């Protein structure tokens, strides 16, 4: 092995070590939550002496928790459907077509992403109040959309950038109607982007706290409930729900990515 090769190896090894430590850093809190959720005692004392999953049982049997899940899932599903619809067209304008004012449009769309969410939540609260709208989970859907639509637009746009407009034009030349082109060409080709957009929309809404805090009114989402419990004092239900959230996100994302890879392979065959 030449000295140059050896130093190359060393550098790669160092980079791997660094990246893996960052991964550990990112997952350390999740591991702590998992540990705290699997003890039978009322308080968390490490090292754990009494292992057990009774708190998982108790948390899942609670009717209040079922209600929370129902609220959070309804919000997230509605947000996903609306956000992806608006963002799909938004992404076409963002990356597919050349038009005057596009560069300005791109920046306007990104503006809400570059905005402190807690302030955005308050601004929406003032706005709903000025309009005289009663706060409920429906206003929270609207609030989530303000932040999530731009994010999903960006996610889909990245796919649209690699889309060849000639495909659409070829279909038009072959006599396809606008609707047929959309259904047979544009949507299938952009599917991976739309699919990731759905995942992002659902998960970002599911995990959102700052926007929900000011806009749900009397309804409560899972992150809001967790925050209230955290402030009020320790209960092992918090780590249980936290672990459930992390695992759900992991399964949806890794599973979703797996699906995209499988689909691509099936196509290549």
């Amino acid at each position, binding site marked *: 092995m030449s000295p140059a090769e050896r130093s190359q190896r060393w550098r790669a090894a160092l980079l791997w070590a660094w*990246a893996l430590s960052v991964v550990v850093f990112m997952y*350390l809190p999740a591991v702590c939550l998992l540990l705290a959720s699997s003890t039978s005692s009322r308080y968390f004392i490490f090292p754990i002496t009494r292992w057990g999953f009774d708190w998982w049982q108790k948390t899942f049997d609670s009717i209040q928790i079922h209600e929370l899940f129902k609220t959070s899932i309804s919000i997230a599903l509605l947000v996903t459907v609306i956000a992806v619809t608006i963002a799909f*067209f938004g992404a076409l304008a963002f990356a597919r077509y050349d038009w005057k004012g596009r560069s300005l449009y791109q920046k306007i*769309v990104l503006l809400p992403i570059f905005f402190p969410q807690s302030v955005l939540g*308050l601004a929406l609260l003032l706005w709903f109040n000025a309009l005289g709208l009663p706060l409920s989970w429906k206003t929270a859907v609207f609030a989530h959309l303000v932040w999530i*639509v731009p994010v999903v637009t960006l996610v889909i746009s*990245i796919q649209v950038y690699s889309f060849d407009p000639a495909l659409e034009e070829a279909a038009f030349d072959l006599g396809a109607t606008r609707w047929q082109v959309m259904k047979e060409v544009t949507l299938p080709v952009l599917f991976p982007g739309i699919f990731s957009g759905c995942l992002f929309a659902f998960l970002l809404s599911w995990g959102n706290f700052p926007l929900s805090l000011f806009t749900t009114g009397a309804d409560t989402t899972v*992150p809001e409930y967790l925050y209230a419990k955290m402030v009020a004092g320790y209960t092992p239900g918090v780590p249980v729900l936290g672990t459930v959230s992390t695992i759900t996100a992991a399964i949806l*994302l890794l599973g979703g990515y797996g699906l995209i890879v499988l689909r691509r392979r099936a196509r290549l065959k």
Partner: protein
Amino acid sequence: MAEVSAQDAIAAPARPAKAPVWRLRAGPANAVPIILFLLIGFAAPLAAVIGYSVMPPRTFSLWQAPTLDNYESVFNSTSYISFLWSLGLAAVTVLLLALICYPVAYGLTRVFGRWATLLTLLFTIPLFVSENVRLYGWILFFIKNGVLLGTLKSWFGVELESWLFTEGIIVLGMVYVYLPFMLFPMTLGVSMVPTETRDAAFDLGATRWQVFKEVDLPLSMPGIIIGFLLSFVLAVGAIAEAKVLGGQQVIPITHDIEIAFTYAQNWPLGSALAVLLMLVVGALVLLVLRRFDLDIILGRR
């Protein structure tokens, strides 16, 4: 119909020239829904905040004679301390993030090969778990008899004071929460540096440091700057880290705003603070974004 087809026949070679006209119209048409939505969902709420900020203190209606009282009381108060804390903590966070993320971004683009996708996914997953919950995990780690101190105590017999509720832990929490927002734009930036350019520099005898300084850094600058901007702006708006991990030792500006809205029931004052924060953030974002062509960063070369 006959007329049209005759025209088509004559104008047949001009068909490709017709396409751009249609495209010009399709672009704005697709942009209409999102623009309308952002008008009522983003521009109008911000206008409402500005409106409330010039209402008399401790009132809840938008239709009164405007006054600048709130701004006056903000400038006469100690809110500037909270502003400085927010900006300072955000600045430290962003600098640490740059140092932590660059090697990872470099590895993701040049070294990790097919593992890069899996690693990217691993960095994405925590984004979808509510910030509070993840910060709570850190509390369990650092708290007395928690994962860290409990292990030290039972294995090594060392008893330490908990580090919770200090400025250091707040910075740790912010670095942790905003890491993906620095990492992903930075990775995009680093992947914009063509391998050929780096190879050429090496062939011409440049040292590793020279390549980094003269090739890697300038060419990946757009992504790096977007990463700086995004993480800084989000960190300035951070509130949970100081509340959950900092035990309210440090009051960032967002916390001041929240207090004005909740305990103090002084919406106009809170709005005035929010407007000032929006000005700082907005000026920064517009200043930086204006200089970029997003098409180049996001994929179209």
